[in-house]
């Protein structure tokens, strides 16, 4: 009976989570739609300029044709409804430049970017956890050094760090390929470059919570039971210290995607970066908007995962 009701609550909770994830995507879609409408200048004109490559006034007939093709002549409300309907069906509109569906353009390129972001997230956790467990709360030089390094990593632009890594390890030492393509070995340097910045942030949060928890009475209890230092750190303290880190990981998705774009530029990697840079410089707004919408979707999915992980680590949180 009790278990049943708990299961019911769990379902309700997932429905709630899904609803809030859907809200995020809906609000993001509204945002990108408004941005496209409020774009300075006549959109049809811009599309024609992009296509012809020159700046000038197009004849009205040409403008009308473009307006009809993209549906700009319809009332805004109808355009909005159509846009939302399209988003629901995975249609993010047409690229002004390539005259292809935005979703296809992004789908072709997003794979490597997501892989890079995910491996970097994992690497950042490994770095943050290992350094914290080994060093945090020990009253010595290492601890001070670690906190300094973490502040440094959180401040340094990852793209700059990536360039240095590239020159040192790929060009000078030749340990890694300069252009790795999509190979596994080519993923190493970009991952490290992207992970280091996040590990700085993550490490600061985890370390400060770790240090705080180390002073808690239950840690003293565990020690008084005869538990050793490593046992205390891994079995008791780490679990608590991971909680704020898990929350941060959800928010870090945006940071990781931003960082991935820059890192891709440094390593000339395939991915969303190239598409976005090209689209931005040619003012292909639907593509940039589409990428924003996709990243909002990714965020919504990640925050559901983060929520789930949090509940596993902290069983005090009831499904409500």
């Amino acid at each position: 009976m009790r278990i049943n009701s708990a299961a019911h609550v769990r379902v309700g909770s997932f429905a709630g989570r899904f609803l809030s994830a859907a809200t995020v995507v809906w609000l993001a879609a509204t945002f990108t739609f408004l941005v496209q409408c409020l774009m300075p200048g006549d959109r049809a004109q811009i599309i024609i300029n992009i296509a012809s490559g020159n700046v000038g006034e197009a004849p009205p007939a040409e403008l009308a044709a473009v307006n009809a093709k993209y549906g700009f002549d319809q009332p805004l409300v109808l355009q909005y409804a159509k846009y939302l309907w399209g988003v629901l069906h995975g249609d993010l509109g047409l690229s002004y430049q390539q005259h292809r569906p935005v979703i296809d353009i992004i789908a072709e390129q997003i794979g490597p970017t997501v892989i890079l972001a995910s491996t970097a997230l994992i690497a950042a956790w490994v770095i943050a956890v290992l350094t914290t467990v080994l060093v945090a709360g020990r009253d010595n030089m290492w601890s001070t050094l670690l906190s300094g390094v973490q502040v440094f990593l959180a401040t340094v632009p990852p793209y700059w760090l990536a360039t240095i890594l590239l020159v040192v390890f790929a060009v000078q030492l030749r340990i890694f390929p300069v252009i790795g393509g999509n190979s596994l070995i080519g993923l190493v340097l970009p991952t490290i470059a992207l992970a280091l910045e996040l590990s700085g942030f993550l490490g600061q949060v985890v370390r400060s919570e770790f240090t705080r928890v180390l002073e808690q009475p239950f840690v003293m209890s565990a020690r008084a039971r005869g538990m050793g230092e490593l046992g205390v750190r891994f079995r008791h303290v780490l679990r608590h210290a991971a909680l704020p880190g898990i929350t941060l990981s959800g928010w870090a998705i945006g940071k990781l995607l931003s960082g991935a774009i820059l890192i891709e530029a440094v390593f000339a990697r395939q991915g969303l970066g190239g598409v976005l840079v090209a689209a931005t410089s040619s003012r292909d707004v639907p593509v940039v908007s589409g990428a924003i919408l996709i990243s909002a979707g990714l965020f919504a999915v990640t925050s559901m995962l983060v929520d789930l992980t949090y509940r596993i680590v902290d069983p005090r949180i009831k499904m409500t």
Partner: protein
Amino acid sequence: MSRVGDWSVSSQPGEASGAIRRAPLRVYVALIVISFFIVAAIAPSLLQTHGPLAIDLTAPLQAPSFAHWFGTDQSGRDLYSRIVEGAGQSLTIGLGATSLSICVALVFGVIAGLVGGALDNVLSRLLDVLFALPTLFLALLFVSLFGPSVLTLVIAVGVGTAPGYARMIRGQVLSVKGAPYVEAAKALGHPYLRILWRHIIPNAMSPLTAMMTLGVGQAIVWAAGVAFLGLGVAPPAPEWGALLNAGRNYVIFAWWLEIMPGVAVVSFALSLTVVGRYLQDRLEGKI
């Protein structure tokens, strides 16, 4: 005994000067670095050794030396002088973006925190969404809408970083609003506006200085990121991100072109972080 006090809150400047006397060494170093860049931004010629745009085709791609402290670029322009020149634009973008984002955040955060209820729910949701969107993607969106310029970068980075501040301010307002001393003031029969003005706003805003200090560094890093992708302010303006972007192509044979502008960005951002954290720790009573 001398008569102590009129009961005003003791003035902030006095407090700050007392603080600086006791600050650790790294805060002094950071302050010196920050002052250097501020001077560079206001009066670059005071610090420059060469004209930032002076082309010297006889000395292209020279390694750092006494004549050229940070070396020269492909056109023989003195890199150090160019970095000093770029400080103005980078600082403008950093400060402008942070001010814009804090203004937006203040409006959002204070309303969400004070009014509460349904409005708070809607605003918080909205902030969550904006916060979820990658800052760089938003910046690119603005660049694609308005074309690259200093103003675009300021707006793009400002809007992109605002949700973070707004969430922080909202949380701060909420925690102060629920503090027992606010209730104690209510129990004394003070009107709400007076409590708002004398307790809630000053206490909720006190972390703002530290936040801004930390924010300017981050804003510069973001803006430089956009420029790094070649989408920033058009050359030959020596904005730091543009220098980084230009240096990328030469990094293999002229490392200084990439390293030195990066050192400028990092040392400035790091100094701001050091000072910001110091202020934060002081506010939280950790020092």
